[in-house]
């Protein structure tokens, strides 16, 4: 009889604990559902409709998804290719640069290093619109500093309408993108580098390791989780890139620099195709998740 009572009380306590956990989690859960899950669900729902945003939509199933890959005028595959090129440059140019800077600045701490840290981080603090306008002026075919410089060094044949030439437009976006976010990744990695125990560095040095060998065999393996986060940020950031493309080329010339986000905006607000716009947003979400999982898996394999 008393055993039953104890059991019941335990059960009751467990239920109360569960209830307490649920109540404490509820606000967070509600926020998560309303801010993240619900919009995604609405996007998935809308992607199944042919809807202009104002009138009644027509249910068309997966037709938008099929059209996205089969209609040449939408140029989704081209936009995806551009994002992946941007991701490639982010991962293989931007991140190594950021890592190099973080390693150099992280070796010792002095006023000079801190000043450099601030200088490299400065572009991250400046609004992307300002950076876009700044680079637009640099690229200006008439008075831009780039063409003027080429004139000055007698390389006039290298002059281009940088953002208007199909051969150089994407490159004109990649350069400021890489430049702007080097500081951001550098700061992430710098935090990791500074977290490496000084004893480990000194032990390696005592064993005769050079500074480079200390970085290569001690620091980099330790900050691997941060590198993984940086790669995820760089790749998903490239997939979601919008602002610099919008300011520098507006997807042109001839839609050659469109990225999924500019295409999405084009579909939603210029073409009034909210269904197709939602389809692109769903594809973007899926791609970002897929790449994040792939990168995590790739880093995990190397850990083994």
């Amino acid at each position, binding site marked *: 009889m008393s055993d039953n009572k104890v059991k019941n009380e335990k059960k009751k306590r467990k239920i109360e604990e569960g209830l307490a956990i649920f109540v404490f989690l509820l606000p967070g859960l509600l926020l998560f559902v309303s801010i993240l899950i619900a919009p995604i669900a609405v996007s998935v729902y809308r992607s199944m409709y042919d809807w202009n*945003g104002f009138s009644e939509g027509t249910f068309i199933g997966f037709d938008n998804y099929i059209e996205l890959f089969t209609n040449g*005028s939408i140029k989704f595959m081209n936009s995806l290719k551009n994002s992946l090129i941007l991701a490639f440059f982010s991962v293989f140019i931007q991140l190594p640069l950021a890592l190099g800077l973080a390693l150099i600045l992280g070796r010792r701490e002095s006023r000079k290093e801190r000043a450099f840290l601030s200088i490299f981080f400065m572009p991250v603090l400046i609004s992307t619109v300002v950076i876009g306008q700044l680079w637009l002026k640099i690229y200006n075919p*008439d008075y831009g500093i780039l063409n003027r410089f080429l004139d000055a060094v007698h390389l006039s044949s290298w002059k281009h*309408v940088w*953002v208007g030439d199909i051969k150089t437009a994407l490159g004109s976006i990649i350069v400021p993108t890489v430049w702007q976010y080097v500081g951001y990744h550098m700061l992430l990695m710098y935090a990791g580098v500074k977290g490496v125990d000084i004893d480990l560095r000194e032990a390696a040095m005592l064993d005769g390791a050079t500074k480079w060998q200390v970085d290569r065999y001690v620091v980099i393996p330790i900050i691997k989780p941060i590198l993984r986060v940086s790669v995820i940020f760089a790749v998903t950031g490239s997939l979601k890139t919008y602002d610099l493309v919008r300011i520098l080329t507006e997807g042109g*010339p*001839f839609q050659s620099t469109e990225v999924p986000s500019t295409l999405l905006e084009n579909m939603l607000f*210029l073409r009034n195709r909210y269904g197709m716009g939602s389809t692109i947003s769903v594809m973007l979400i899926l791609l970002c998740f897929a790449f994040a999982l792939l990168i995590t898996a790739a880093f995990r394999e190397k850990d083994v």
Partner: protein
Amino acid sequence: MKRRIASIVMAGIMTLSLFGCGSATPAATTDTGSATTETKTETTTTETKTETTETAAAATDEPITLNMWCIATESDSNRHAYEAAIAEMAEKYPNITLNWEAFENQSYKTKIKAAVSANEMPDIFFTWSCAFLGDFVDAGKVYCLDDVYPEFASELPENMLGNTTYDGKHYGVPTTMNIVGLFANMDLLGEVGYTEVPGTYEEFIACCDALKEKGIIPFGCAGKETWCVTEYLESVIEKSVGADALNDIFLGRDTWNNAEVGAAVDTFQELVNNGYFDPSGIGLTNDEVKNNFIAGKYAFYMNGTWNCADFASNEEFLPKVKVAEFPVINSDKAKLGQLIGGPSDTLAVAASSPNAEVAAKYAMELGKLICHYGYLDGCGLPAWTPYGDTSAVNPLTQTVAEICANADTFVLFGDTAMSADDANTYLSYVDQVYGCQVNGDQFIEGLAKEIR
């Protein structure tokens, strides 16, 4: 004299809305003579009607706040017209407070569509006529102006409402109307021996060749804003295949698969391939190209006649610039007087506005005033019957008025006439034509296939 010109202009533009939207207004061509008579009659009744509208608007004595969105930003040539009109309205109706906000043209298109979608529109909003407003009307988001229009009918001719009339109902208050003009820097033309803008296509090409030889770039065109390319391309197509053929295509009555249109596109590409266009233009915005034209970099600049205000306000540049009509390319199909343009700038009232009736009357009167001040400033031709002293209108706008007075047919800008999706497919192809990525045949075949 000026008033007479204005009346003649009004007569000329009577044909504008003959290319109305949807099933509202049948497309036809009227002769300007009968329209002139109609205009004169309406002009005489202006004063009486003004009194009526005052009474109607003043009937609402209680304080009301209205919100308005428009694109008359600080740098917009219509800014002064809006400010003057709003100030006059504030004085006339102290019980009505108007909160207005201006947004940059391109971002406004996004903003207003998002607002319509979310049913969060301001009471009064700026819109483009035809297909742009048509989508909002179809969704039932726009207040019908049929109840208030009769009070203003004598000042706003019915046939100026064709582009804002859907299923026989009026939904918009047109302000100014504009056409595509061929602006010429006469100083540069003078350097190659021309004292007038060439009148025939052959002379025009000879002039471009002479300019090129002299090291002067004939045309400036902003490739970064595709609508600027359409100003050239549509004029070339219209003067090659005729206004009716182009209008039928724009309004979906005929297919894009028209070999003559393809040939006209090839003609345009010849101009590009001959090096008449500034190669830098492809990476420039319209503001940059316009500034280059004012600075004397190009001999010609084809763009909307709303630019007259900016050119006229530049005392140094005004004596150098002339505006003319693009010459006829194929006289068997086209003729002078066939123009690209029409009344597109419009004010509309949200159906969701709690003060929709007052807003409708207010929008009507405000539209009239914006039209009045806009005309005086040279921002375009009046959609409403002009009143008061118009002698201060700049000479460029007066020339445009004369061109319109002699006009035969107006074809509304392609990207305004077509639905949003079709317009963007069209602009995408225009972009490719300018960059010589597709030729005339590929242009017509692609559009025939892809326009929904």
